[in-house]
């Protein structure tokens, strides 16, 4: 394969001399058709490298749109798919930060470009969606009680290639990414306190290690900060091309030793629309599948077919892990979305020859819950050998450690705060979605106030003159009910195909009430959002409101 290497170097050199920035894309998968023989694979690689080069040269001085057309032709001519979709051009900028679900349903790769306008992207000219609807939509996320991988091992791979110098984010993609990943690391450990993370960078064709696998957010944050700090010895200017294959191989090596009860995840932030790989990436993908590594990719600017393939094959056919950030706001959100622990799949459908092994070996871990002590006289801590006045004493050997979570230096017991574990319980015992309440039902219950915040609900209209009463109420209640007509209008044009779980649609309730199905209490929209987003408890159930449903509420009480 020395031959191939030669191609690789030549290709990249030429690209930089072309000076056209980083929008060159070179597809080198055969498409979705599947496996190839080994001999053919080499062939394919070399050929694709050449065609990629040609296509790049053709398009280097043209516009982006022109290069797309050229590639379309090329695809027909040579059977090599070039999968790039510069949907950044067509996708309107997002106005509200709430409507994430729409963007997760990205179009099929390789689809005709003419299909783009029919996608459900909201355009700026759309009438504003009422706040209640937005809030409810935002809520429809993970209320199913999936098993989730709580002990995670994550490799965060950052793109440090030339493409990150693009200025479509302010001041450029590179600084934006650095800023958001630091925030992301903090949030990640907030949400997954007993998880491990490692940061890598794809820089100039190779994959560099930014920080080692560890559970200490400060390590990663300072290492990421060191990337952009020109005075730091580890500073890296974005340079060259990224290599997905190298990144995956190094990640695979890093995750190789992690225990089987945790997840193995690779989260890639990829700014470039190309990957320069030394070998056959499909083999790498296959070995990732065997090692049960799950890859999610956050792209920028456009979609690449190879990314879809990586994500779909490592997530047993689920492509939702490949998302494209079109602006910095979305980049931040997509990053933060990966802080939610991934769902554990029970059986992995074997789409290819390499049968994936069982997702995880569950085991029982012994852990200590130490108590904090305050001492009058400073004593040495067991972890650093510093004199400290307080800390946590190991429950088994009474060694003193400075901070938690940690492994006891004396007896190797995992020491943890019970609050660290408890932080994940709402993923395991999620609060069920509350349902909308019709006027009919509201009359039946006679609820006047939100159960938890005591704010007033509007009175139900008398049953025969609903519409007339509706307008009266809104006139009387002023600002509160001003949104009524909006919401009612919105109910009509509810977007179909909502991927909400169970049978519910994310609509606003006509009576402004939302009912907990367990305790039958009524809540306002703000409490609905607060309870599902932040609190993860139902004040009604816990407050014993459902006296008739005693068994049920007792059950939730146990489960959270």
């Amino acid at each position, binding site marked *: 394969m020395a031959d191939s290497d030669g191609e690789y170097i030549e290709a990249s050199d030429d690209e930089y001399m072309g000076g056209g920035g980083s929008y060159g894309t070179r597809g080198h998968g055969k498409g979705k058709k599947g496996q190839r023989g080994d001999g053919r694979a080499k062939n394919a690689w070399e050929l694709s490298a050449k065609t990629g080069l040609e296509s790049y040269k053709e398009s280097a001085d043209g516009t982006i749109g022109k290069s797309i057309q050229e590639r379309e032709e090329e695809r027909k001519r040579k059977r090599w798919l070039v999968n790039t979709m510069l949907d950044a051009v067509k996708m309107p900028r997002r106005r509200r930060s709430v409507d994430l679900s729409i963007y997760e349903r990205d179009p099929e790769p390789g689809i005709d470009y003419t299909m783009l306008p029919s996608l459900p992207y909201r355009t700026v000219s759309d009438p504003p969606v009422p706040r209640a609807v937005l809030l409810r939509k935002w809520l429809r996320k993970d209320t199913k009680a999936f098993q989730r991988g709580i002990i995670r091992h994550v490799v965060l791979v950052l793109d440090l290639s030339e493409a990150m110098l693009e200025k479509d984010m302010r001041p450029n993609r590179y600084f934006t990414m650095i800023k958001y990943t630091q925030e992301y690391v903090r949030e990640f450990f907030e949400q997954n306190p007993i998880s491990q993370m490692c940061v890598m960078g794809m820089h100039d*064709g190779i994959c560099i290690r930014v920080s080692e696998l560890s559970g200490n957010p400060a390590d990663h944050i300072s290492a990421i900060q060191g990337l952009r700090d020109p005075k730091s010895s580890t500073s890296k200017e974005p340079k060259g091309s990224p290599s997905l294959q190298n990144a995956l191989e190094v990640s695979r090596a890093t995750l*190789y030793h992690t225990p089987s009860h*945790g997840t193995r995840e690779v989260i890639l932030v990829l700014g470039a629309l190309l990957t320069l790989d*030394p070998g056959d990436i499909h083999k790498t993908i296959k070995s990732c599948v065997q090692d049960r590594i799950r890859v999610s990719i956050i792209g920028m600017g456009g979609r690449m077919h190879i990314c879809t393939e990586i994500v779909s094959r490592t997530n047993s056919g689920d492509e939702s892990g490949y998302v494209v950030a079109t602006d910095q706001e979305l980049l931040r959100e997509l990053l933060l979305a990966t802080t939610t622990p991934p769902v554990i799949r029970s059986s992995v459908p074997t789409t290819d020859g390499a049968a994936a092994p069982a997702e995880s070996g*569950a085991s029982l871990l012994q852990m200590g819950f130490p108590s904090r002590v305050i001492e009058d006289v400073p004593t040495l801590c067991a972890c650093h050998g510093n004199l400290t006045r307080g800390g946590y004493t190991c429950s088994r050997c009474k060694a003193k450690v400075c901070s938690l979570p940690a492994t006891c230096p004396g007896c190797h017991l995992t020491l943890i705060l019970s609050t660290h574990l408890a932080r994940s319980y709402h993923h395991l015992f999620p609060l069920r979605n509350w349902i909308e309440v019709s006027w009919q039902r509201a009359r039946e219950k006679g609820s006047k106030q939100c159960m938890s915040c005591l704010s007033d609900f509007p009175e139900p209209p008398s049953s025969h003159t609903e519409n007339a009463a509706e307008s009266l109420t809104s006139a009387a209640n002023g600002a509160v009910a001003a949104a009524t007509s909006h919401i009612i209008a919105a109910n009509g044009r509810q977007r179909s195909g909502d991927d909400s779980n169970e049978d519910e649609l994310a609509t606003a309730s006509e009576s402004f009430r939302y009912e907990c199905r367990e305790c039958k209490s009524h809540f306002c929209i703000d409490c609905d959002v607060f309870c599902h987003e932040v609190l993860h408890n139902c*004040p009604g159930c816990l407050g014993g409101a459902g006296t008739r449903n005693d068994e049920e509420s007792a059950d939730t009480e146990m489960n959270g």
Partner: protein
Amino acid sequence: MNAIDGTDRHIKSTDGPPPSLLTIILDTNPFAWAHLSSILPLSSVVANLLVFINAHLASGNANEVAVIASHNKRTAWLYPTPAPVSAHNTNGDSSSRNGAATHTQNANKYQPFAEVETNLLFNLDNLLKTTTSDDLSTTTTQIAGALSTALSYISKSTIRHSPVDPTLLESHALVIDDGNLTSQRVNLVSRILVLSVSGDLASQYIPVMNAIFAAQRQRIPIDILKLAGDTVLLQQACDATGGIYMAPESPQGLLQYLMMAFLPDATARKWLVLPSAGSVDFRAACFCHRNVVDIGFVCSVCLSIFCSPNLPDSTCLTCSSVLSLGGAITAAPALIPRKKKKRKRVAGDGSTPGGSATPLPGNGTPVHP
């Protein structure tokens, strides 16, 4: 000179302390109060509490108060009075409810004080009257429900006070770091005071923990005044949220404890030396027996805590996954990757043709000649 040319005009938008919302959770568990009655009867506690509430209301014009009773099988609002659930029409705002709470006008009493007092006493009376023997079948109190209700109420009040678009929840407030919006968002200072007399709260471990995290996220301190009972969960609540924990040795001096330790709100506490919790009990409750343990066995799938490794059929009681015991006895659930040598070998035997372009970890040599 700044003052003369007016450049510091924008530094302060509001003067005076921000309005403060005090939410009190009164544990009304009859068993505990019966036990305490010789030292400190409930009636005198309520009297002391009313003095404390008045002091809070008096210390700021815009200050508000809410009182929730955490009873045996339910939680109940003591102040403000909720509207009775019926088809009867009510008009008026939530602070002055109709029906029951018609207080006699007393010219010698400051109106807000009188209102709180009448409502609170009426509702408490009502709660105790409607307590049935069925309610007394449990000996613990609904602290999780009371905390959840209090947090929802605070959240709604914060939204009411906030001029900012409330679609931005607390979790998204991070986006806005230009200070201007953030400072407007937090203009209602809230806190929760729990007057706790019950122990045995471990049965509500998860919901209480959820409430603690919610409070932590909203930066709402939870203060605990513990008159009786064990301390495990509530002490963690204080520690996590930055509240004050006190377990007075002589409960007779309740009013003094309240006034000295718990009256200052979050704004004032910045300048005070607070009573420190000292050592904190961070033990967890096992899911199987609700025992409090300091070494537990944790299911790697759902993080349920068990007090012994001998589970029936070695399946997790919560998520029913089959658990291997290996990891529990042999220590270290490997936290740090060891042997670098091995990693190299693995990287090499991957599918890298030629291998030259795959860098070894940490090896920064570029491929280009």
